[in-house]
């Protein structure tokens, strides 16, 4: 007997706990405090305009307390709402203070009731909207669009969304664009190659590679670095093609090049 009693007791405790948790765990299912309030208000089974905001506030506060006792973390907006409702509750319970200039408890309560009614109305409107016959499900558009495709007249189009996304892409490209060097200060190897091809015609004798740096690239360090590197790469390329010879007397000495014998004249 005793054990059975115990067992019953335990069972009911577990049951209660589960029930409490079910309500709390459902917090995830609520879309914010207003939604929770709307759900709680349903238990009053009255017109939303005549709802007892005081009772509703108490239900909400009890809910939050229960959540706390179960150590369930509530999002900040639930707690803000709880604080506001506690304030509202005190306003509704205390006789109005004639010196207080703020809105009365009744006004605040009426507004909350309005918000709940409006949310409820929108929810019903959404349901009615989705319950309508829908294109592609209940009624249908022409299956074949007879766009004869013989003509070549092209008309360009863009949507506002394209435009805005293009702009957004441009204005935020620094946030995410891959590492690329800015054009102004960078000489590509192709450019260097082009320049050197023209110049080596005049280089009969060994000439310092650095003298090939084009106008305007000698002074700014970043530009000079880029041009030097590209020129060096270009000279290797030209050597590979058998157009020039390269020499360097020792490590870090200057690099010289000249037109290859066979190419001269």
């Amino acid at each position, binding site marked *: 007997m005793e054990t059975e009693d115990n067992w019953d007791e335990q069972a009911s405790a577990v049951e209660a706990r589960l029930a409490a948790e079910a309500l709390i765990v459902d917090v995830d299912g609520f879309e914010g405090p207003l939604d929770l309030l709307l759900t709680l208000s349903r238990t009053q089974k009255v017109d939303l305009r005549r709802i007892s905001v005081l009772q509703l506030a108490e239900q909400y506060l009890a809910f939050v307390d229960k959540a706390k006792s179960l150590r369930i973390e509530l999002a900040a907006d639930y707690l803000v709402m709880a604080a506001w409702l506690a304030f509202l509750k005190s306003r509704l319970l205390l006789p109005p203070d004639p010196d207080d200039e703020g809105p009365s408890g009744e006004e605040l309560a009426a507004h909350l009731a309005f918000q709940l009614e409006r949310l409820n109305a929108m929810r019903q409107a959404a349901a009615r909207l989705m319950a309508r016959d829908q294109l592609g499900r209940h*009624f249908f558009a022409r299956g074949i669009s*007879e766009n004869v495709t013989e003509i070549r007249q092209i008309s360009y189009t863009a949507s506002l969304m394209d435009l805005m996304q293009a702009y957004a892409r441009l204005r935020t490209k620094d946030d995410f664009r891959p590492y690329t060097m800015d054009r102004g200060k960078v000489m590509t190897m192709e450019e260097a190659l082009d320049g050197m091809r023209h110049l080596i015609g005049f280089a009969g004798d060994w000439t310092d590679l650095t003298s090939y740096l084009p106008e305007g690239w000698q002074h700014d360090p970043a530009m000079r670095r880029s041009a030097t590197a590209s020129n060096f790469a270009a000279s290797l390329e030209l050597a590979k093609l058998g157009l020039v010879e390269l020499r360097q007397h020792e490590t870090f000495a200057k690099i010289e090049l000249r037109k290859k014998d066979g190419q001269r004249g």
Partner: protein
Amino acid sequence: MDEITDTESLFEAPPMAEQERMVEAILFASADPVSLGEMTNRLPHGSDAAAALEHLKKRYEGRGVQLARIGDGWAFRTARDLGHLMHKERVQLRKLSRAATETLAIIAYHQPVTRAEIEEIRGVSVSRGTIDQLFDLEWIKFGRRRVTPGRPVTFVVTQGFLDHFGLESARDLPGLRELRAAGLLDNRPPPGAILPDDDEAEEEGQENLFDDDNEGAEA
């Protein structure tokens, strides 16, 4: 000058029955609604597209396809009662989340509406994904900026939205009149809040609902 007069008299508008045939052909060929303006451009000079459309609409009453008005556009759509025959054509629509359907309804009934107003009504912040999804479906677009500090952008529904839900205009939204009469479409500020002119906001709201029909025309 003389030439122009000559050509004008030479090419008279075709008889109404012929205009009706033309409108019929053009609408049949297109899956998307064709606006009255475009129709007028495509018909021979001097035609009365609006009248031809009215005739055509009558002709198709009770048929398997119907001529439907969608915003400023017109399109043929299959009769609602025959949807069950179209299982082959039925497209799988992604189920919208509750947040998305509510946000859509708020935009439709309160348009033009700002993000802050949507959040005020739902009592919860609007996620990017929700707005994104509605943009992807081409059911909402940006409306005019609100003439209030910060000039916030507004959202409105599109012609595609009207087409999808079989609405002639945003004014035909179910229950719109009742909601308006009950004051549930008001943007009522919390008591004690300082705010811009109430009248102005309301006036703008109304004006814009009418407006929306025009905007549908542009889209």
